[in-house]
């Protein structure tokens, strides 16, 4: 083959362009494979949930780990979130001379939106990273291999209890968050902002319907599901060494948070339509 001078000058450029395209292709294939893995993992996870025996003791242990130990933080965040909502709500509503609706504003924001989302984010920060790190370290120190060598399925022994615990703990913590938040909002509205206690409560009771509670509850369940899935999956796919665990925990927190906020938008759109 003979090359003209122009072609020869082009060759490295072509090579670089091809290299870029190759890398893009590798990235696309890699991401698709990764997502595929995540869904296959979910399939096995759900299969593990429905096939007996379920180790209830482990589930309770994990509920204590994820749920009970997060109660204080969740309640603390809840009370201040409620308080802030009361202040902000009263300010906004005062522009329309409608401060009487501060109660419903606080309660509806908490029940429909902030309760599930903030609780899920708190639990991810506190327990999601811990689950991923624990599972990841168990994997890289051969503890998972040891389980398998003893004919104990790590999916059933490690992942399933954590996943179920997440699905149960997040809605329960959300309920606590909302209750404490409304209490915080009430205290601030009545004692600091000087709103009438009767108005706050009666307006709130008449404005909040069961549909609001349902939609908050459904959100919390879905968030718990995502939290458990992502945390376990990231632990399961953890790379080697301290760097591997570092990456897995960071990605676990970021991925679950992003997934939850994105899902939140779609869920909200769907739920407001369904529960009209």
């Amino acid at each position, binding site marked *: 083959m003979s090359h003209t001078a122009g072609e020869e000058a082009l060759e490295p450029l072509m090579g670089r362009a091809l290299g870029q395209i190759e890398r893009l292709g590798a990235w696309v294939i890699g991401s698709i494979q990764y997502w595929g893995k995540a869904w296959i993992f979910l399939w096995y996870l759900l299969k593990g949930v429905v096939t007996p025996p379920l180790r209830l003791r482990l589930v309770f242990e994990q509920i204590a780990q994820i749920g009970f130990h997060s109660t204080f933080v969740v309640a603390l965040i809840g009370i201040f979130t409620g308080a802030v909502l009361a202040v902000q709500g009263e300010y906004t509503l005062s522009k329309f001379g409608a401060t009487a609706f501060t109660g419903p504003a606080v309660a509806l924001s908490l029940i429909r939106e902030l309760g599930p989302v903030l609780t899920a984010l708190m639990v991810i920060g506190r327990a999601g990273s811990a689950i991923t790190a624990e599972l990841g*370290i*168990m994997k890289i*120190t*051969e*503890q998972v*291999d*040891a389980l*398998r*060598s*003893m*004919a*104990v*399925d790590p*999916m059933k*022994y490690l992942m399933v209890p954590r996943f179920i615990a997440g699905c149960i703990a997040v809605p329960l913590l959300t309920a606590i968050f909302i209750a404490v938040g409304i209490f915080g909002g009430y205290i601030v509205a009545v004692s600091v902002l000087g709103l009438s206690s009767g108005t706050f409560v009666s307006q709130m009771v008449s404005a909040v319907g069961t549909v609001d509670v349902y939609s908050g509850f459904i959100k919390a369940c879905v968030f718990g599901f995502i939290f458990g899935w992502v945390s376990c999956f990231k632990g399961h796919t953890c790379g080697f060494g301290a760097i591997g665990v570092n990456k897995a925990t960071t990605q676990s927190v970021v991925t679950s948070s992003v997934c939850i906020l994105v899902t939140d938008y779609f869920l909200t759109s769907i739920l407001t339509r369904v529960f009209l």
Partner: protein
Amino acid sequence: MISVRGVSKSFGSQVVLRRLSLEVEEGKTTTIVGPSGAGKSVLLKLIMGILQPDEGEIDVCGYSVTDASSEADRNAIRENLGVLFQSAALFDSLTVYENVAFPLTECKMLHRDEAHERVIELLESLSLVKYARKLPQEISIGIRKRVGLARALAVEPKVLLFDEPNTGLDPLVGQEVYDLIAESQQSQGFTGVVISHELPEVFQVSDRVVMLLRGNIVMEGTPEDFQNTDNPEVVQFLHGRVDGPIRIQ
């Protein structure tokens, strides 16, 4: 009892095992020796069905590990196995006692009280009683190894795989471990695979010895064969010489 036929395994571009074949006879102890990175631990994981070979077949107790299609099938085979991992691989959220009891309560599904007697017996025979309440992080690697050994022996499996049972142990305890392996071999009659760098001490528990190098077997025979051989690679390895046909990578 264990039959490995034409097994190859690579990680990416790194070839670890090349068409390796190996037979482990029932009731005998086979020792695998070879330099670091030869693929000894990988071979054990292939036998356990934790890693899948790129090609070849592995049978354990007459069942094919490589053909087992589901984790449940592989678990049925693994019920016959007891494994001591190179790193001991103790569960770090459980105490020494709970670690040894684990295979009894979680795999054999025994009640705690039923398992208790056996656990105590094992802890005593390995002089581990005083560590029973400690967590793995609180004890030295040598003691961790012994706990791993107790855990592997707990269910009296038909096949025992020991990955470097003596590394990290002092000479006295090391000898105790050999005695224990020989003793339990006599009383339980298990089929053993021992990986070790302790030459020639490990020969006292070996019926057969296999040397792995560059992903394949360079020599197979009785301990006597090994001590009398003039195969330059084996001689170099046995005597730990730096100069010779084996290059340290």
